[in-house]
């Protein structure tokens, strides 16, 4: 009973301090709001309108139609025209354009011999008879852009020749579940919950203990009967609610603005976020017992935050990472939460079905709380 009252003392104190700290209180709302809108609109892996140049050596009606057909895909946007190859290369060097479309002089001959035209089928190994119609010169440093332009390699030319569309039978049929329209935002918004929670939750608690030390309150706190585990729990409780508010903002607005489906049940969503909020807060507390100043605690927060964004599967698929990076990713709560929240929000799975991720978050919280409580000593030694 007394123990509860002591935890309550810390909780009330934290809430009052948070209420008085207008800046922090504002950030609780503004961080998820701004970041959601920013990332929701900004992050898009379906690339369109890449600025490219044209080097038309043919200057025929055909070359102009070819250019228009390529432009009609919407993937590229012909912003510049060049007259020579060195000029085109220089333009790529100075990043004026990302790629140059080079139409050779003999484009009409090449087209005629191209299998798509259908004047008999020349042996495909015969370089002389079957050559590509035109060439793309691409700045390959950005793999995403390069990949997008590479996807033009087998662009159907049926339209160009006024023929019926591609009649080729696909080798495989691919059925896209959960995000059939392939909108990146559907994947990003649930991931954003993890990134924003990691950032705000760790930040709040990583400063929690250090701040008491820096402001000179610690000497008073340790002379009271307050136990370290009580202090830790008291520090965590208020922020669980803050985290819940942020989740509501992100998923609510994500649903409203970006039409992100929320397929899972509310109870599953609450359970998953609760587990992750606790794990993040505890991680912050551990940082707070290590850091000796608020600046240090901020630095450590950033140190944790970056891998949480880059390795957790938020930006790049976990499966694409080398094994070592996967181990690091597995250690971070954000990785497990991103799996859980995407599962719940997009695929309507039950948290208990994703046992490994759930157990990892619970274990992380308990061990972290223990470490923080042990590390925090009630003497000045």
């Amino acid at each position, binding site marked *: *009973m*007394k*123990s509860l*009252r*002591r935890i*309550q*003392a*810390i909780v*009330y*104190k934290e809430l*009052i*301090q948070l209420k*008085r*700290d207008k800046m922090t209180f504002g950030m609780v709302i503004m961080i998820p709001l701004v970041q959601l809108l920013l990332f929701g609109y900004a992050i898009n892996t379906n690339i369109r309108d890449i600025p490219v140049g044209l080097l038309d050596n043919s200057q025929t009606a055909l070359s102009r139609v070819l250019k228009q057909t390529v432009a009609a895909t919407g993937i590229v946007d012909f912003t510049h025209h060049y007259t020579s190859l060195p000029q085109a290369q220089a333009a790529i060097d100075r990043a004026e354009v990302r790629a140059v479309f080079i139409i050779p002089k003999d484009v009409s001959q090449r087209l005629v011999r191209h299998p798509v035209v259908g004047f008999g089928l020349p042996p495909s190994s015969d370089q002389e008879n079957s050559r590509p119609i035109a060439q793309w010169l691409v700045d390959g440093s950005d793999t995403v852009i390069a990949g997008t332009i590479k996807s033009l390699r087998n662009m159907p030319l049926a339209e160009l020749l006024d023929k019926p569309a591609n009649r080729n039978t696909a080798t495989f049929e691919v059925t896209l579940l959960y995000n059939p329209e392939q909108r990146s935002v559907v994947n990003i918004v649930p991931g954003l919950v993890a990134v924003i929670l990691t950032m705000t939750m760790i930040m709040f608690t990583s400063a929690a203990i250090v701040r008491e030390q820096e*402001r*000179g*309150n*610690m*000497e*008073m706190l*340790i*002379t*009271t*009967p*307050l136990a370290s585990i009580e202090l830790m729990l008291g520090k965590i409780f208020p922020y669980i609610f803050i985290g819940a508010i942020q989740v509501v903002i992100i998923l609510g607005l994500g649903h409203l603005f970006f039409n992100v489906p929320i397929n899972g049940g509310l109870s599953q969503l609450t359970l998953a976020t609760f587990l992750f909020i606790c794990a993040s807060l505890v991680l912050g507390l551990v940082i707070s017992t290590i850091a000796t100043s608020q600046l240090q605690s901020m630095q450590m927060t950033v140190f944790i935050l970056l891998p949480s964004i880059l390795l957790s599967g938020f930006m790049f698929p976990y499966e694409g990472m080398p094994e070592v990076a996967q181990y690091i990713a597995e250690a971070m709560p954000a990785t497990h939460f991103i799996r859980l929240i995407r599962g719940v929000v997009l695929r309507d799975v039950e948290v208990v079905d994703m046992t490994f991720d759930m157990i990892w978050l619970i274990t992380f919280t308990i061990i972290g709380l223990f470490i923080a409580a042990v590390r925090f000593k*009630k*003497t*000045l*030694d």
Partner: protein
Amino acid sequence: MSELAIDAKELTRDFGDVTAVSSLDLRVEKQTIYGFLGPNGSGKTTAIRLFTGLLKPSAGSIKVLGLTLPRDANKLRLQIGYMTQKFSYYDDLTVKENLQFTARVYGLTPNEQKRRIDELISIYQLQKLSPQLSGSMSGGQKQRLALACSVLHKPKMLFLDEPTSAVDPENRREFWEQLFDLCDQGITILVSTHYMDEAERCHKLAILENGVKRADGSPNELMNNMSAHVVEIASNNLRNVKQQLLAVPKIVSVAQLGSHLRVLVQKELDDPITYLRKQNLIPNQDKMLIVRPSLEDVFVTCTGKNKLFEDKK
């Protein structure tokens, strides 16, 4: 009265190579105000932290209120109040919220909380300040709040670390009145200070320097047993005379107080005035008087390079 609140023997605390408190023997009787007098860095704060269980001793034994430290540090916490040198309650909480926080931390029931807080607010005249943020208050007001918070759980013993360093003289007087009230209610108080006038108010005091206890006893005992005579000289050429007197062998210290020189002469001389006259430094028309020693004189004779006895090692 004879029961001891603090009984420390050979108490030592090192921080690396530095010894902050060295072989300190201390006996504080219950229901008294005991003073620690010493310059900054003399080990007062470290000693208090040892007695409150915040630091573990490197050597020696401590018993506070019959509890052995550091073993019983947690039990002791409920029975002592500690007011730190720097205001250690929350600047961004109001006076009332700070009191409520403290009451909850000490596990008072809501009814007890209300009663005790009302009581303290009236004792320490915090009524008008109650809705004010603690950070915006003056030194004296913060002091009253800190004292109210540290006695909220009715401790048997109170430790005050330089409580009046940021308080004006009028508030200091009042503050000491409150301390005597507390003492009257049966609380033992240990207070550190570097003000002589405050030290003089204590029932007993210890003079600390470099972690070593140089002297202890009641202010009167200390003054009566002082190992030097105090001679006051009224002269016209004070600065000059002072410089010359400092070179005289049996003179412990010379200090100027307005138009007088206060000269401490070793006690072994029976007639210090004749001794001083013999030095032929002071014009004959100048008056000399043996006066009652002050606590400052005691402090000067037993600290610094003037001290009249060796460090015990």
